[in-house]
């Protein structure tokens, strides 16, 4: 099976006050085209370290990554920059990820220009199409990013991420800061985009209920290791690890029955 991503035996240690702490300990996973792998774990379990290593923002100590058939960790310079178009990211707080003074158009223009997706004359039309695709009015192009609501900003972040026609999106707590009604609509948008474009997602969150909503398979991280991995329904109904059981027990349940 040739998926867009195969991670094998990744390790990364930090040293903290003289002690070595394994942030990633022999982590292996695969994601196939059109599939969502949910990655759950408590704070400090290593989820974000893994996303940073995948995005080449952090070098691992050991292990390998194959992305679209290539040795991802061997790529350097121009080659890496060019291939990055195919692995894009969406973070929790898009305001922290954007220049707040930038307009929506310039946020979307950058990837189109840098990755040579559309020439100067075609770019306004491409930007309008992207905005429409993520459910925003095309008139939003001229608005400064900071004047948008949290949900609208996250739609812009998704538009930017898909602008370069990636095969994999790394979504790190991408809906965690949103109100529940907005969160539901963003999740629906992600599902539609996946169906339409065959995108693969690595969907990272501490919130198992949200991960369950969107993931085909779920991997559970604890202390730098993947302690459990399987079809989403199996992990939430018949967890095998303590870490998964703790996450399941912690999901708030709506108590509606009269006491």
């Amino acid at each position, binding site marked *: 099976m040739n998926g867009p991503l195969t991670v094998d035996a990744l390790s990364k240690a930090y040293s903290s006050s003289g002690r070595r702490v394994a942030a990633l300990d022999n982590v292996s996973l695969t994601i196939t085209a059109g599939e969502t792998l949910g990655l759950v774990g408590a704070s400090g379990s290593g989820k974000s370290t893994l996303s940073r290593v995948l995005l080449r923002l952090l070098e691992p100590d050991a292990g390998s990554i194959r992305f679209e058939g290539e040795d991802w960790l061997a790529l350097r310079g121009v080659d890496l920059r060019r291939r990055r178009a195919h692995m894009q990211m969406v973070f929790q707080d898009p305001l922290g990820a954007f220049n707040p003074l930038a307009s929506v158009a310039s946020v979307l223009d950058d990837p189109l220009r840098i990755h040579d997706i559309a020439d100067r004359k075609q770019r306004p039309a491409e930007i309008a199409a992207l905005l429409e695709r993520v459910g925003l009015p095309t008139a939003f192009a001229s608005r400064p990013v900071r004047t948008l609501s949290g949900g609208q900003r996250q739609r812009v972040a998704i538009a930017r991420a898909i602008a370069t026609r990636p095969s994999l999106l790394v979504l790190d707590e991408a809906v965690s800061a949103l109100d529940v009604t907005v969160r539901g609509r963003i999740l629906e948008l992600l599902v539609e985009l996946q169906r339409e474009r065959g995108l693969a997602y690595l969907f990272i969150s501490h919130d198992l209920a949200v991960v369950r909503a*969107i*993931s085909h398979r779920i991997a559970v991280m604890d202390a730098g290791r993947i302690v459990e991995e399987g079809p989403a329904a199996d992990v939430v109904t018949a967890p095998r690890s303590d870490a998964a059981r703790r996450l399941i027990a912690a999901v708030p349940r*709506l108590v509606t029955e*009269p006491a």
Partner: protein
Amino acid sequence: MSPPFCSVRNLSVRYGLEAALKSVDLDIVRGERLAIIGESGSGKSTLARTLAGLLAERARIEGEITWPALGQAPLPGRDFGFVFQDPGTSLNPVLTIGEQVAEVARRHLRLDWRQAYVHAEGLLDRVRIPQPARAMRAFPHQLSGGQRQRVAIAAAIAAKPALLIADEATSALDVVVQAEIVRLLDGLVREEGMTLLFITHDIALASGFVDRVAVFRKGELVEAGPVRSVLSSPAESYTAALIANHRDLSTKPLITEVVS
């Protein structure tokens, strides 16, 4: 019927031209656990800050807040404790944990420093900080987010206040730690007979332990009532939508299980 602990009448708060709260009427009953529920921009944090006297100076306040049980406006620290969302910014980074918790006890319980430190160490134990004696000498950055929030709770309850206000106190924590902190708050207010104002965007989280809920939207009180009756038969469509949008592990997934 005893007088309410706090009575809010026709309260409006504006920041410049923007109304953050509009004509709110709400009573807080002594000893109850009341959840203030709302999404961003609902005014829930403005309400908490108005009650606590923590609003920015430019805020314009109209209406009336009375504290029949206290007979006067509550004094921060002594009459109420406030737990913020981010203990990283509410704790002083250059003071030890012990000093910060002891300071509250020293000032409001009129203890000397030595007694205050003994009291503080006992409080760290109550909020289940492991090795409290050692944690007393630690600085905030040496603790995890969850441990820091436990310290912030210890400082908030150090002077045995009648009211504890927790403003999104668990929102920055992961779900496992969130569940532990909610259990801790629930236990503390029961044991101490404190009144709890639990401000949250998460109606499900509140539904598990509070007595009453007040739902806010765009600065207005949508509805308030006993938690079971509001959750099982909400009077307002907005409350019903909040309930319908809740997602847990039994909610149907948005994807089809097999990759097509």
